[in-house]
């Protein structure tokens, strides 16, 4: 390593290029098919909101009922888009971190097709009415092996890569990646074996909630944080502030995530200690989020202005912020005083959307904005479209979370009146559903620019010039976000 920590040696650069080349096709495959699923999911999010708002719409068509549109929307969003984008990020990150070229790009692409087939079958079976009303596990149980094997075929390659890492300290991102790689098979298999038509219905519901919470804390969180721990110091050009703090964050997540989930049904027909333990874990786990957030904050201290220029940093940090919001909301809402009101209301949908879109998807966008120029050899064409992507996404996620929170209170307030007709709770919440429709429209608007740019880069028609695409800068005019900040400082802008 050279004396100047920030400057890469020619050997480093050649190595990077070789690594990027080895993962190029699998990672691009995952990103582009994930984006396609995101398009489907966005459309379905809009349609399901519309159907919920105007239930008489398409009355004769069971395929367009809310009971099918909404689960299909969530399946496409979680498995088609979010997890698939996450898999792409994992491969690239692990190759870069351990400085290993991917030896089996073909196997990974085959596995990617298997995963996509699994998602497609899951979506089609649920859409055809063969689903089970188990959120995020709606597909018939025989679809699970497709996803399971597809997943293993991708992530198993991370283990030999990790074993062949360079000597020295294990970087915290590597810990998160190995954790995520191993935790998902465990929670996915457990949930699919225990949740089902046979067996105890009550426990199925509880385990279903456990699975959803675990997918967020045991997979989305580590993948997003691994990416953030890699990208933040890269862009800031300075080391992560504190190794001990990062360790605390990782181990807190590792120890606590598996206990969360049952608090969604606090007050339900379980021995009281089960939701109590989950609720406590969902409060304790805020420590893991605070540790990561504080570490990024201290790392960037004095360089916060980078956020204005670097798309990667902006999306990543926004994701971390939303993770904090999610963790706090989910911890606070496990108190019975809130839970007894909100637990069966629209609020829950708002919370899930916050985790999948506000937190994970935004962090994944950040990683994609960083990775794709490196593996395609061209730059993002338009800073304006990136800016639009960010702000429309922000408005969208803000709208859905706020309206679902307020609408959830309105709805649940009526549901808890025993002498009110149930339909009252539907009526009072109905106005707030508009928030969901608007939110998915905004998110669709945000992502159109993203799809367009990704497609251009996929076919090799990105911008060909030196210098990154930064948010408030003429494309190619400055070499890095840091330079842009310095220039703006000198010129008195911002």
């Amino acid at each position: 390593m050279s004396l100047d920590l920030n400057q890469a040696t020619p050997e480093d650069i050649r190595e990077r290029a070789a690594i990027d080349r080895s993962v190029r096709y699998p990672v691009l495959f995952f990103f582009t098919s994930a984006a396609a699923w995101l398009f489907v999911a966005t459309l379905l999010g809009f349609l399901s909101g519309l159907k919920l708002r105007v239930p008489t719409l398409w009355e004769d068509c069971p395929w367009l009922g809310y009971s099918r549109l909404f689960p299909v929307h969530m399946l496409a969003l979680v498995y088609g888009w979010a997890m698939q984008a996450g898999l792409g990020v994992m491969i690239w990150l692990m190759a870069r971190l351990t400085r290993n070229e991917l030896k089996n790009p073909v196997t990974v692409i085959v596995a990617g097709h298997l995963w996509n087939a699994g998602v497609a079958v899951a979506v089609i079976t649920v859409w055809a009415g063969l689903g089970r009303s188990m959120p995020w596990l709606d597909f018939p149980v025989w679809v699970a092996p497709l996803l399971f094997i597809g997943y293993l075929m991708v992530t198993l390659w991370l283990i030999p890569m990790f074993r062949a890492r360079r000597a020295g300290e294990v970087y915290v991102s590597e810990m998160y990646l190995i954790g995520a790689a191993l935790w998902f098979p465990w929670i996915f298999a457990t949930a699919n074996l225990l949740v089902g038509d046979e067996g105890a219905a009550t426990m199925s519901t509880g385990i279903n909630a456990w699975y959803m919470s675990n997918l967020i804390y045991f997979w989305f969180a580590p993948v997003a944080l691994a990416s953030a721990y890699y990208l933040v110091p890269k862009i800031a050009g300075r080391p992560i502030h504190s190794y001990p703090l990062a360790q605390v964050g990782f181990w807190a997540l590792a120890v606590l995530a598996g206990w969360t989930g049952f608090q969604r049904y606090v007050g339900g027909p379980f021995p009281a200690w089960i939701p109590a333990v989950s609720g406590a874990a969902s409060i304790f786990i805020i420590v893991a989020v605070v540790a990561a957030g504080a570490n990024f904050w201290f790392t960037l201290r004095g360089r916060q202005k980078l956020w204005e220029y670097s798309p990667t940093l902006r999306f990543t940090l926004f994701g971390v912020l939303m993770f904090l919001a999610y963790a706090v909301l989910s911890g606070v809402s496990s108190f019975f005083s809130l839970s007894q009101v909100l637990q069966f209301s629209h609020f829950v949908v708002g919370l899930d959307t916050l985790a999948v879109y506000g937190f994970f998807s935004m962090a994944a966008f950040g990683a994609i904005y960083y990775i794709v120029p490196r593996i395609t050899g061209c730059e993002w064409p338009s800073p304006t479209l990136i800016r639009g992507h960010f702000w429309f996404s922000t408005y969208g996620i803000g709208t859905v979370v706020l309206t679902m929170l307020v609408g959830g209170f309105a709805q649940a307030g009526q549901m808890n009146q025993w002498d009110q007709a149930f339909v009252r709770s539907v009526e009072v919440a109905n106005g707030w559903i508009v928030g969901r429709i608007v939110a998915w429209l905004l998110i669709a608007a945000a992502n159109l620019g993203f799809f367009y740019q990704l497609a251009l880069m996929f076919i090799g028609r990105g911008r060909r010039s030196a210098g990154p695409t930064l948010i408030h800068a003429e494309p190619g005019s400055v070499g890095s976000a840091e330079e842009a900040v310095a220039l703006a400082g000198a010129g008195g802008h911002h």
Partner: protein
Amino acid sequence: MSDNPDKNLDYEAEGGSVVDVHDAVRREKVLPPTGKEPISFGPLILTALVLILGAGYLGAYSNGFRDDIYVTKYYRPDPRPAGAGGDAAAEKLAWIDQWMKDGKKVYNNCVPCHGPAGAGQPGLFPPLKDSEWVNGGTTRLGAIMLKGISGPFTVNGVGYNNIMAPWDTLGDEKVAQVLTYIRREFGTLKEGEDGIVTTEMVKAAREQFKDRTTPWDEAGLRAIPEDSMLPGAKVDPQTGQPAQ
């Protein structure tokens, strides 16, 4: 190798000049080794707060980790009234019970002066409980309710001198509900009378007294016959529909 279509990437140029490598890869900084700063004060304090909160939660909700306790602390038991029939009975609340319940809500407006039990306040506000005006006909009661009273007034032989505001701003239904509540709850009903005042009856009262612009005095009220009842069909207390 030279016919690589993607010239910009130049990935195939193994061992070639670094300059050929795409700019994004070249300009990228090295990932610096993680800093060894100790955990600072802010995160520690936050962590301590979270731990206290979570431990408090666990202590309050876990019920000693007993397998046989299902009821979460702070759980509100089923608020429905207990009794024969259970759910079915609760769902089919008789019309008159709902009417009285709503009437009680409207009566909250009256509580400041007449008190929750209709006892009034000695020397200031007359009682409703067993008041001659409540026990008597509904016409007088409706008249008072809609137009208010001002000046000296005698109730059950005791004199008062105060003002009652007119309540004609309440809807007909609410006036009917509260009058029913007052008569059935505080009055002594005559043989064969159910004490129910319907919306139709209140409409009739509004019509009858529509020309009056000032509150009543005692003489004016006593001019209305004591046993005069507001016109309107009797209703079935179970359904609220006109009785057969």
